[in-house]
């Protein structure tokens, strides 16, 4: 039996599924029609609550609960904003939805707009995704021409218009308040919270910001009913299937739909086809996008207390813990986007640290001193370690700088930099010390990495 399931991805392999007639022949818009013509907004919201969707954008907030925070004052508009900025390294799932089945996202937006009382929806797409943007624009135009959008979608007097909005190359615009700043035409600098977007979001109005995949699950929630959708997941409170990504040193990198709560072992060895090179075992895996602390292959769950959330896995490999929001937090990591980056025994963790820290230093918006300075320092330290100029105190300094970045900033980018850095040093302390002593070798550039791209050894 295979782990893969086909709900969200049901039309992924249907040729031309991005075209309305094809998508519709394969079931598109039946759920939106049902939601608009047979259900009240409150009934839709109840099903979504029962579906136990944990937000797929990385933070894992329960979707139904977030929708419940909306309390628009009389006369206020409510807006839906879909986060299609997909920038978290290791994450490439939302792009597949928009390119391969854009009508699923449009249908999800219609259902969400009706449920939360919104008449306008903006999909904020990172501008590099030109094909996704084009497919979405075409899908929106086709749905509108068919009367599924506009003043009376499916004949129901609840006006809905959906627009795409391009980003312009800035990872930070994936953070929901930076995204709203960018949507409003400004620099993508995160806002102080509270107020949260549900109270004061786009254009000063109560706004729901959801990830593409979160929204794309809605047609299945309506078709199956929330409870049945939730039951597809393997963990209580974390319902449905979800899209897993796997990249790096596996045989079959890609996007796979499987139940919430599969294990990293299943993701790497079953869905991902196992390690790329037979003679190079797994060294570590970043479970859900680069901001989630990595998990070394050797990590064993230590949870002797019966009250510990991971007690059931006490003494087992961390690779056998179900991937859930709560379980992975208890493991000292995070579930994130479920975009796993797999690294084999050839990889230098010092080089990994340098690669990731360069990313965050480049992408910090610079508003908060601990983040702006801290990411810069981390790069400086990693550069000198990697270039053989490391100082004896550098490893401790990495820890100090990371700790100083935590909890003191406007948005979570600083934490998302510091936590993976701390995990790298914690689990591969010896490797960092060795690098400081002897200079790091660039072990990624061995013959077989060169061979992967067909270069001469």
């Amino acid at each position, binding site marked *: 039996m295979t782990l893969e399931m086909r709900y969200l991805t049901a039309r992924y392999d249907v040729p031309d599924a991005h075209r309305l007639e094809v998508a519709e022949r394969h079931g598109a818009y039946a759920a939106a029609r049902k939601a608009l013509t047979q259900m009240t907004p409150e009934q839709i919201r109840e099903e979504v609550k029962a579906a136990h969707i944990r937000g797929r954008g990385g933070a894992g907030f329960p979707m139904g609960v977030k929708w419940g925070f909306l309390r628009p004052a009389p006369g206020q508009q409510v807006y839906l904003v879909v986060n299609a900025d997909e920038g978290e390294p290791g994450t*490439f799932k939302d792009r597949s939805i928009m390119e391969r089945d854009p009508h699923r996202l449009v249908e999800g937006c219609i259902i969400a707009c009706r449920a939360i009382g919104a008449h306008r929806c903006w999909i904020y797409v990172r501008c590099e995704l030109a094909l996704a943007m084009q497919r979405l624009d075409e899908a929106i135009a086709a749905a509108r021409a068919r009367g599924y959008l506009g003043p009376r979608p499916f004949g129901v007097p609840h006006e809905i218009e959906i627009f795409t909005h391009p980003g312009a190359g800035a990872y930070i615009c994936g953070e929901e308040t930076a995204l709203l700043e960018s949507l409003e*035409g*400004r620099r993508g600098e995160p806002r102080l919270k509270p107020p949260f977007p549900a109270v004061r979001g786009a254009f000063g109005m109560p706004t729901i910001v959801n990830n593409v995949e979160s929204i794309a699950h809605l047609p299945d929630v309506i078709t199956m009913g929330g409870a049945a959708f939730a039951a597809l997941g393997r963990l209580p409170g974390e319902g449905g299937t979800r899209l897993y990504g796997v990249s790096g040193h596996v045989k079959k990198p890609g996007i796979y739909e499987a139940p919430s709560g599969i294990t990293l072992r299943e993701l790497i060895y079953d869905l991902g086809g196992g390690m790329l090179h037979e003679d190079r075992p797994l060294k570590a895996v970043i479970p859900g996008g680069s901001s989630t602390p990595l998990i070394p292959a050797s990590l064993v769950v230590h949870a002797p207390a019966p009250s510990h959330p991971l007690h059931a896995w006490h003494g087992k490999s961390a690779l056998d813990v179900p991937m859930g929001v709560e379980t992975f937090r208890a493991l000292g990591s995070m579930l994130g986007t479920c975009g796993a980056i797999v690294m084999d025994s050839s990889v230098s963790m010092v080089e990994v640290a340098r690669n990731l820290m360069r990313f965050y230093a480049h992408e910090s918006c610079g508003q908060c001193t601990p983040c702006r300075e801290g990411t810069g320092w981390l790069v400086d330290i990693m550069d000198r370690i990697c270039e053989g100029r490391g100082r004896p105190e550098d490893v401790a300094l990495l820890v100090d700088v990371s700790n100083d970045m935590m909890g003191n900033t406007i948005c979570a980018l600083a934490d998302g930099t510091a936590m993976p850095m701390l995990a790298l040093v914690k689990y591969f302390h010896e490797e960092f010390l060795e690098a400081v002593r002897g200079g790091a070798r660039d072990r990624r550039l061995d013959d077989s990495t060169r061979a992967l791209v067909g270069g001469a050894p």
Partner: protein
Amino acid sequence: MAFALSPEREQLAAQILTRYPDPRAACIPLLHLCQQQHGWCSPEVIDYVARRIGVSTAHVLGVVTFYTSLFQKPHPPNVVWVCRTLSCDLRGAKVIQEHLERRLGCRPGGRSKDGKFALKKAECLAACGGAPVVQINDRYYENLTLAELDRILDEIAARTAAVEPSEPRHQEPDAGGAA
């Protein structure tokens, strides 16, 4: 001379402005539209967008400088973005970059000897499962090999008109009133 959009793009701009309750939200979409035509966000483009949405040029300039895909300088007709984030690096992105540097004769941030290509380093392009990845203009090239990359570059170079060394700015044939 003031910047103007071509008639088709002007129509698109008018349509974009209707999408928001506040015209200022059209800032980035309009900058993209102008850049498509003009090749970069010149002072004239910035001035045009500022007037169109009713903000100061300083505001629009602040936006342009924040985002890496909005160009502050004229640049070659083709932009090659090589992803160097982790998943791509694990699958040979450094080798790809070195090959590009040799072939184009420039470092990231520079332009090729023939003036047809700019080389830039990209952060994760949301295509990690197809690593290593290079984006050239609007297209992604995934699971690249060096041979494949050479073939793609040959093809693009062949269909790019020769660039005059003194006039590196790219203009599409249908460009409306240029600066």
